[in-house]
């Protein structure tokens, strides 16, 4: 009994560490690429680590990069729990940013709190409707949500390019070679910088770009957690995600949960967009490329959500890890002159390894159920096999 308890503990420890191990494995593979480029691997990773977490400012930048990823990832938890594969974080984020920025610009002159709350609400709603649209198409016409969300991403990018080059263009940028961006938002609309005062009087994150978006993300994670596990709404979303047939039997409207889960997921991504504007850029700005505004947060959020075990509170540290990778990689590029495309490649390798590690955790769970006495909550039979009650 004693030794089996120890084994259970070790098993769970390994499961917990697997994502981290997979990250290390990914970096090991990436180092082969570095060697091929004649770069000093140790130096490169030292630069990465230093750039991500080395100084207060570096860590703040990591968090700044992680904030939009967090918002998207928290939303993805909802969609994926309903078994709706939302790839539309990018588009929903843009929709939220457009609505939030428009609201902010329209309300300049109003009290600070009014503008910020209205902008967040507008951003949430726009993202939610945009996500909900894909959910509606799936529920009503059985349109595959992966396809529809990817297409809606394109639509959103084009819409943003159009609006930022025309109706929403900053009046001071009317030249031929203008940068597509809106007017700067008023100071009252800007989210304050987040500085943490320690008891001994030192200030943490003083003079960095870290903003209140981080706190909003943490609050959002709590709200989504409560919705998913403490309310009938979340119960139904999870029920539909696990078993549509039994949900229908129970009187749960499957279509409605799909729309709702996409609504919530889109809303969270929408918030990512507004918060990026209110907290960091102070205007909506793009370079015209698809990721010009989002910096791929809409996609990275998916991986962070999976990495975090589709739990909103797991999504936060997972996003920070991703932020660190992004910021650290920039530093690696700057210090060692490693080409930017390699950074993208390393990113991709990490994604593949992380997702695989999730599969490995599930597989280990199944094996355990088979052979030992340890606690497990993973299906006993392989997932391609459908049990039918006799």
């Amino acid at each position, binding site marked *: 009994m004693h030794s089996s308890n120890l084994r259970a503990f070790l098993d769970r420890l390994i499961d917990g560490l697997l994502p981290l191990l997979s990250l290390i494995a990914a970096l090991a593979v990436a180092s082969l690429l570095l060697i091929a480029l004649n770069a000093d691997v140790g130096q490169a990773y030292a630069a990465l680590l230093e750039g991500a977490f080395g100084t207060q400012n570096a860590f703040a930048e990591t968090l700044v990069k992680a904030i939009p990823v967090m918002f998207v990832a928290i939303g993805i938890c909802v969609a994926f729990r309903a078994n709706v594969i939302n790839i539309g974080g990018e588009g929903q984020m843009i929709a939220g940013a457009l609505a939030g920025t428009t609201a902010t610009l329209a309300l300049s002159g109003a009290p600070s709190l009014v503008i910020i709350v209205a902008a967040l609400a507008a951003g949430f709603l726009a993202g939610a409707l945009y996500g909900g649209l894909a959910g509606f198409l799936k529920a009503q016409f059985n349109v595959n949500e992966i396809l529809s969300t990817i297409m809606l991403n394109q639509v959103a990018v084009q819409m943003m390019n159009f609006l930022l080059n025309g109706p929403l263009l900053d009046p001071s940028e009317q030249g031929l070679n203008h940068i597509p961006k809106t007017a700067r938002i008023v100071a009252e609309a800007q989210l304050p910088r987040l500085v943490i005062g320690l008891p001994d009087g030192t200030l943490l994150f003083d003079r960095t770009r870290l903003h209140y978006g981080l706190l909003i993300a943490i609050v959002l994670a709590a709200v989504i957690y409560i919705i998913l596990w403490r309310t009938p709404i979340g*119960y139904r979303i999870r029920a539909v995600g696990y078993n549509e047939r039994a949900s229908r*039997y129970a*009187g749960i409207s499957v279509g409605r949960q799909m729309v709702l889960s996409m609504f919530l997921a889109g809303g969270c991504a929408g918030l990512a967009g507004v918060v990026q504007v209110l907290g960091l850029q102070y205007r909506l700005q793009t370079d015209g490329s698809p990721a010009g505004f989002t910096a791929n947060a809409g996609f990275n959020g998916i991986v962070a959500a999976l990495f975090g075990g589709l739990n909103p509170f797991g999504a936060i540290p997972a996003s920070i890890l991703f932020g660190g990778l992004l910021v650290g990689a920039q530093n690696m590029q700057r210090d060692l002159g490693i080409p930017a495309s390699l950074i993208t490649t390393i990113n991709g390798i990490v994604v593949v390894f992380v997702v695989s590690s999730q599969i490995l955790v599930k597989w280990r769970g199944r094996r355990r159920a088979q052979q030992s006495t340890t606690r497990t909550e993973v299906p006993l039979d392989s997932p391609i*096999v459908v*049990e*039918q009650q*006799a």
Partner: protein
Amino acid sequence: MAVSSLAEQQRIDQLQMRGIVKQFPGVLAVDHVDFEVRAGEIHALLGENGAGKSTLMKILYGLYHADEGAVLIDGVDTAIRSPYAAIQRGVGMVHQHFMLVPSLTVAENVALGLKSSRGWRLDLDVVSKRLNELSERYNLKVDPNVPVWQLAVGEQQRVEILRALYKGAALLILDEPTAVLTPQEVDELFQVLEQMTADGRAIIFISHKLHEVLRISQRITVLRDGRRVDTIPTSGATKATLAEMMVGRPVVLEYEQQPSNRGGERLHLNDVSALSNRGELGLKEVSLTIYGGEIVGVAGVSGNGQTELAQVIAGLRPTKGGTIAIDGKDVTGKPPSQLQLLGLSYIPEERMEDGVIKEFTCAENFVLQDHGRKPYVSAGFLLNLRAITDACRDAIRQYEIKTPGTETPIKSLSGGNIQKLVMARELSRHPQVLIAAQPTRGVDIGASEYIHQRLLDERRQGTAILLISEDLDEIMALSDRIAVMYEGRIVGIVPRAQATVRQIGAMMAGAELEVS
């Protein structure tokens, strides 16, 4: 290759399990069990729900690994670490919960995991051909080219048996094979089994139906709470002695029924038709009225429209004409949620697919319909976890459901215990109209008796009950009237007092109601 003869290397003269122990979190499922089976023998395994029968067999089949103990084949210690190894050693198993891939055809399902003679390519035509031979020989009829999702449960089981035979099982484990079969099909299965033992195979047979065990087996091993009570020869055993061995106390096997206290019209179907999964008209202009305080039993060979009938009433299958009314109110086409508010409860036939969400805990499953309603929500929008847990704990106590606790994922309960939880949930909702499809399928005798008593209690309280069962004894014991279905129609409705098994049996085979 002749399918009758047993390949030499796969013959098993004697298989022994010695001192097997298997611990699950909170449950000692198998506790130092010795078990032995010989070639040419049908060895029955008996025990209450959760006694450890399936677990012991899954260990033999390599699906679970025992914590202690050994398996000896013909005296040689043999480690069976996986189903693949089991099949290699000639051990086959047909599971309590089928393991077929619904989107694949019968032949493809059989071919899964087989080594093909054409390297990496599947030779499906060869598989189909041998499959046809096998089904011919054992009279197990299925079309190899039909996708499995189109098959009724009884047919799916034939596929499972064929698959095991195809792989050359010398020892075949059948985990509750008769739970899904009609008496007719049971007879056919038993012929198959006898043919197989005559061919020198060994069979382990699990069932909760004592008359079947008495009829087909040569020896019986009884498990209780994971321990072996005894192994006895079948000759000399009686239902009563077996029941007592299983439960540990004498069991009442018969119970009296009070006369019906028939109330007003509750459920009314008028010329209702519906499509089956195959897209054919599976339910043809069925008209039926059920009154409060009565049980209408639906008898029929599986696949004659009973499933469609239940699903149409429950709002899970659209009608193709006709109307359904509850308490005089037209409810045709209403979604399940609205029907539930009108007091409809439904115990579905396929409990693992329809009745529960496997990944959810017992407590979560207990409030599948009512999680958004009164006692289970607090502050208007939050789940009242305490109330949910308490309600589930009450049900577990009341129905004697074997589970480590309310927070255990329901998929780790034994089949019969899952059924008890579904039953407890549906009855706790105080239904006005109750559709019970195969309510005691896979449930042990003690619990069956309890479920029957509860159905009779509901009847006494004025509930209108539609009881769909392939167990004619159950129908005869509980129903006030018996409706017989054949090819999607109700061919006749007989008051139980006038019904005879012979007459019902004839109607199930398509004979018109003889007016007496």
